[in-house]
């Protein structure tokens, strides 16, 4: 008979907890993921790939790539600027600024879309002016990009701020003392210090940008082949009872999610195994 340490649970408790964990995660996480792929392949590989021959699907993929291609870089620039000012300097209203950066995460996606309809929509603030100049934001690509930029705004900044606060300003001060310019300091000292956190933020930002549904749905107008992103196209195919095609397109997004999770785990592992690796001397950049 082996003695159980006083700070461990009896074996039956451990087994029970483990079984509950497995069953709960199977019912809520694993089955949905598996279902996406089995439903997509229900009628064979041919039917699966036929789903992508639809021009509407192709244009949805293009629009999603375009949207993420704008939203992610823009929010990277914002994240870097916000983190630099918040982490390296003291100023009044700093905690208010960091709270406001998190705001889009607290807002319902539908409300995120609605606020742009109220500004740029036909009877919104700028509606009459836009109409007079034959510009369209809502029910058009700019609205989709704007809504996506809004919902993905916090992701890079909130990864960078705590890390850069922790790292302090000594590295940058040394570089400046040694004669580096501000830009040189940023590129060769700060950026190498934060590269993993930056990549982490970019990956989360991209996943949300490509997958956003609610906010984009409100501003898109669902014009087939024009203002549908991939998630909106999934909804349209599903509502037309075209299940194989809907799940085939959805499987693209599920693969993106899996890649995101894998990249996230890898970066977490890198960040914990090599905490805040200093700028490598002789780094070719």
């Amino acid at each position, binding site marked *: 008979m082996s003695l159980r340490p*006083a*700070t461990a*649970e009896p074996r039956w408790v*451990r087994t029970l*907890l483990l079984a*509950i*964990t497995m069953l*709960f*995660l199977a*019912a*809520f*996480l694993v*089955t*949905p993921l598996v*279902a996406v792929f089995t439903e997509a392949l229900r009628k064979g590989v041919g039917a699966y790939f036929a789903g992508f021959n639809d021009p509407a699907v192709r244009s949805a993929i293009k629009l999603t790539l375009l949207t993420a291609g704008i939203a992610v870089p823009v929010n990277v620039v*914002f994240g*870097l*600027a*916000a983190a*630099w*000012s*918040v982490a*390296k*300097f*003291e*100023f009044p209203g700093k905690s208010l*600024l960091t709270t*406001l950066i*998190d*705001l889009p*995460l*607290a*807002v*319902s*996606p539908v*409300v995120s879309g*609605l*606020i*742009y*309809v*109220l*500004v740029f929509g036909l009877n919104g603030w700028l509606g009459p002016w836009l109409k007079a100049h034959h510009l369209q934001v809502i029910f058009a690509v700019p609205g989709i990009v704007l809504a996506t930029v*809004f919902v993905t705004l916090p992701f890079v900044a*909130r990864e960078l701020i705590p890390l850069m*606060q922790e790292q302090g*300003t000594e590295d*940058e001060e040394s570089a*400046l003392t040694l004669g580096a310019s*501000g830009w040189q300091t940023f590129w060769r000292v700060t950026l190498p210090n934060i590269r993993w956190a930056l990549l982490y933020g970019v990956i989360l930002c991209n996943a949300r940008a*490509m*997958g956003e*549904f*609610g906010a984009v749905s409100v501003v898109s107008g669902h014009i087939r082949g024009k203002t549908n992103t991939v*998630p909106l196209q*999934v909804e349209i195919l*599903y509502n037309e009872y075209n*299940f194989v095609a809907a799940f085939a397109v959805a499987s693209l997004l599920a693969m993106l*999610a*899996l890649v995101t999770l894998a990249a*996230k785990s890898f970066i977490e592992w890198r960040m914990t195994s090599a905490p805040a690796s200093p700028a490598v001397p002789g780094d070719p950049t």
Partner: protein
Amino acid sequence: MRLPRRQHSVLPGFGLTLGFAVVYLSLVALIPMCALFLRARGLGWAGFWSTVTEPRVLAACRLSFGAAFIGATLNAVFGFIVAWTLVRYRFFGRRFIDALIDLPFALPTAVSGIALTTIYAPNGWIGRALVPLGIKAVFTPLGVVIALTFIGLPFVVRTLQPALEDLEADVEEAAASLGASRPQTFRRVIFPAIVPSLLTGFALAFARALGEYGSVVFISGNLPGKTEIAPLLIVTQLEQYDYAGATAIAVLLLVISFAMLLVINALQRWSGRRHLRGM
């Protein structure tokens, strides 16, 4: 931990970066949100009140709150068990399961929505097992609860994990050596230490569930007054060009979101951690 820093930093770029961040944040987020509040002011208090007390709106809010609360509670219970096993036990596939916890963050909500609907439909993998029990999940409030539980799970697990990891083993050893049984140690030593994190996770899951749209609309069936959630009602009213109605409900949701944000900030200060990975 915050160290006092010199008031005048030698680093360049303060004005440029802060200026850019503030202008960008204002243009993208703050000014459009002001548009919502100004539009709501146009309704007047009476107009706002009569909109949000319409039976259909009340039913939608009741469902949104109720389902979000039940979902967050389920997550508090099961998320705790999941976090506990992931932190305390070593078993095959632990790292894989740990990575999978973030799936609801990473999987686009529309995909989660159609996948959950397929599984819990009467001919689906899990729905089939529920039919003999007389339980209908799809197109009922239960479906809404299922979707909101799915979406909230990572919030509870990810806030609890670091709290459980930070628990010092010697405190438990001390309790045990002073004669406490394992259940007593859990109830009087471990549980009180993680209550702030558990509440934070609950609040985060609840806040997210209140506004959730994509994963719910497929499984709920969207019957007005029965399975229609508040965010969906906003969309419906927008489609009917009822901007006043949509604005009123949106303001209500937004005010509640702000309140939840304050509660969460307070809870996080209490539990001593501000940063939540991966939300």
